[in-house]
């Protein structure tokens, strides 16, 4: 027993060893378990972008980047352990992007008391959009309630603006993540007069026979999916098996990557998924990634995910973090910023077309400006469709805005409730 304790202490001392670099970024990734198929490309993109900045520019604003990876397995407990273990790394972690709504819910009170910003891009707690209550949490450029509204708006547009009496099913991961859009969909159902049918799928989601049998029996006009990891592949395969019309099947942005549809083969053709950024690898930044990251042998993971939907999203997340760091450096006039300064940088982040073009990502994402009142961007998204023959997702709509009237009301209600429960005095 004693020996084991000593070995642990020794190992702990070894960990404290690594160099004290200045901008510490933690990548809480998951490369193992049932969610790895989606976790790997995101993490590769996230790491490769920071590697690019290190190799090409020598860091951000002249300050080197210390990238720490921690494996969470999409498990909330492990995610919190990762947070506790890495928050003091180097001179302190600057920002956390857990890529898990479950972990996000656990971390919100922790980051608020530790003073470390949390960026949940397109996931997490939607009402964190209200920065007056959630001072340390950001979820720009889009959130789940936006996504729910995008899906319904798309169905509205397809059906000439009238969907009353339609039956729409939500197939969702039975966790904090999958339950997030229900409230908005219920409100939208009331507004537009459609019937909502809820079909939960338990973790990890490789057993969905009964849910799809129910869909086959009740024949909903549309199916919306909030899935992640192995649940996506299985759901799309099941939809193919019951010959559900794929163009009436819409996934949230986390259910729309190549790894999700390829398993179902040709017949998955026409499957739709939402997105809040552009797709493909036809951007100048990819030439730089090829030159500075891939060719130098520094690519994260196996290096075979470059240009996929989730790789792009990981890279987008890293890019937004890097831009926030730059904003913070300009605001405070120091290059070695701390977590509190990082928060200021995030709160004053402005993404313009000009800025993205300079980064080699023209037209990649929507323009938005973060402010204290609005931590969530403007809620623009688009619909993409899977082309099985070409093997890629392509955008089939322009970017459109979500139903802000309903969403801002819900955000207001939910954040006010959170503020009251936790004794937070809202204010900017």
């Amino acid at each position, binding site marked *: *027993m004693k020996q*084991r304790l000593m*070995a*642990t202490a020794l*190992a*702990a001392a*070894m*960990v404290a*060893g*690594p160099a004290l670099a200045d901008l510490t970024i933690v990548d809480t*990734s998951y*490369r*193992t378990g049932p969610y*790895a198929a989606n976790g790997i490309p995101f993490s590769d993109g996230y790491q490769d972008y920071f590697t690019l900045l290190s190799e090409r520019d020598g860091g951000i604003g002249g300050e080197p980047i210390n990238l720490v*990876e*921690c*494996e969470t*397995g999409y*498990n*909330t*407990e492990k995610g*919190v352990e990762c947070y506790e273990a890495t928050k003091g790394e180097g001179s302190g972690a600057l920002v956390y992007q857990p890529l898990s709504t*479950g972990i996000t*819910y*656990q971390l919100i*009170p*922790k980051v*608020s*008391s*530790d003073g470390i910003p949390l960026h949940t891009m397109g996931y997490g707690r939607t009402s964190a959009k209200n920065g007056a209550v959630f001072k340390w949490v950001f979820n720009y450029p889009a959130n789940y309630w936006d996504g729910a509204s995008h899906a319904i708006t798309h169905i509205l547009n397809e059906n000439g603006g009238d969907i009353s009496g339609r039956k729409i099913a939500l197939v969702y991961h*039975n*966790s*904090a993540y999958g339950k997030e859009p229900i409230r908005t969909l219920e409100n939208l159902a009331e507004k537009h007069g459609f019937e909502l049918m809820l079909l939960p799928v*338990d*973790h990890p989601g490789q057993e969905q026979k009964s849910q799809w049998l129910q869909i086959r029996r009740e024949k909903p006009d549309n199916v919306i999916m909030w899935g992640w990891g192995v649940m996506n592949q299985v759901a799309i395969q099941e939809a193919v098996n019951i010959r559900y019309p794929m163009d009436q099947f819409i996934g949230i942005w986390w259910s729309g990557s190549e790894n999700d549809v390829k398993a179902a083969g040709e017949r998955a053709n026409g499957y739709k998924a939402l997105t809040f950024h552009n797709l493909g690898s036809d951007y100048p930044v990819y030439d730089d990634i090829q030159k500075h990251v891939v060719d130098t042998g520094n690519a994260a993971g196996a290096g075979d995910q470059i240009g996929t939907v989730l790789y792009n999203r990981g890279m987008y997340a890293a890019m937004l973090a890097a831009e926030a760091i730059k904003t913070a450096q300009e605001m405070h006039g120091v290059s070695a910023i701390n977590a509190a300064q990082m928060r200021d940088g995030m709160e004053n982040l402005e993404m313009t077309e000009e800025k993205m073009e300079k980064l080699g990502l023209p037209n990649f994402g929507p323009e938005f400006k973060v402010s204290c009142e609005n931590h969530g961007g403007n809620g623009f998204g688009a619909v993409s469709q899977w082309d099985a023959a070409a093997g890629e997702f392509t955008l089939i709509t322009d970017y459109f805005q979500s139903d802000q009237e309903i969403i801002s009301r819900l955000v207001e209600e939910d954040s006010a409730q959170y503020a009251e429960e936790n004794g937070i005095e809202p204010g900017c």
Partner: protein
Amino acid sequence: MPITGAETAPWAAYLFCLVFVVASAIIARNLTRGMAGRKWMAIRDMDIAAEIIGVNPLKAKLSAFAVSGFFVGISGALFFSVYLGAVEVGEAFGIDKSFLVLFMVIIGGLGSIFGSFAGAAFLVLLPVLLKNTLVGGLGWPTDIAAHLELVIVGALIIIFLVAEPHGLAQLWRVAKEKLRLWPFPH
């Protein structure tokens, strides 16, 4: 002094749980030494023989179930309220958690209270040690370390079940006896 929520100091949460652990351990240890515990062990080893010497199997099995439910209830409540702070039913109390507890008991040693503690410490500390040495010390990729951890824990469970069904507790007992006689075993 808060013991739940984000502001909790680690030592406060630890001491709070320690009180419950010590109390439960004392109760459990005394149960296994007393009549109730001996009845359970008799049923576990051979239920027909136990019935013949006068143990009521229905009573013994039901009481074992109820008492273990009591202890697991305490630990579940502490786990969710003090350690996690919030709970997502399918995730916090999934099948993995049940297996983990089972493996703690198997590795620690069936039928011993000390073994349960040794097994729990082993299964909690081993992944931390592996992660710290492989990822932190040797700089391995995190996914290989995570997979290797599964392999090692799985192998240990098989080895313990085959080679030493009484687990760490038995190893400890044997070591103590040997050391008491050492260096003149005869």
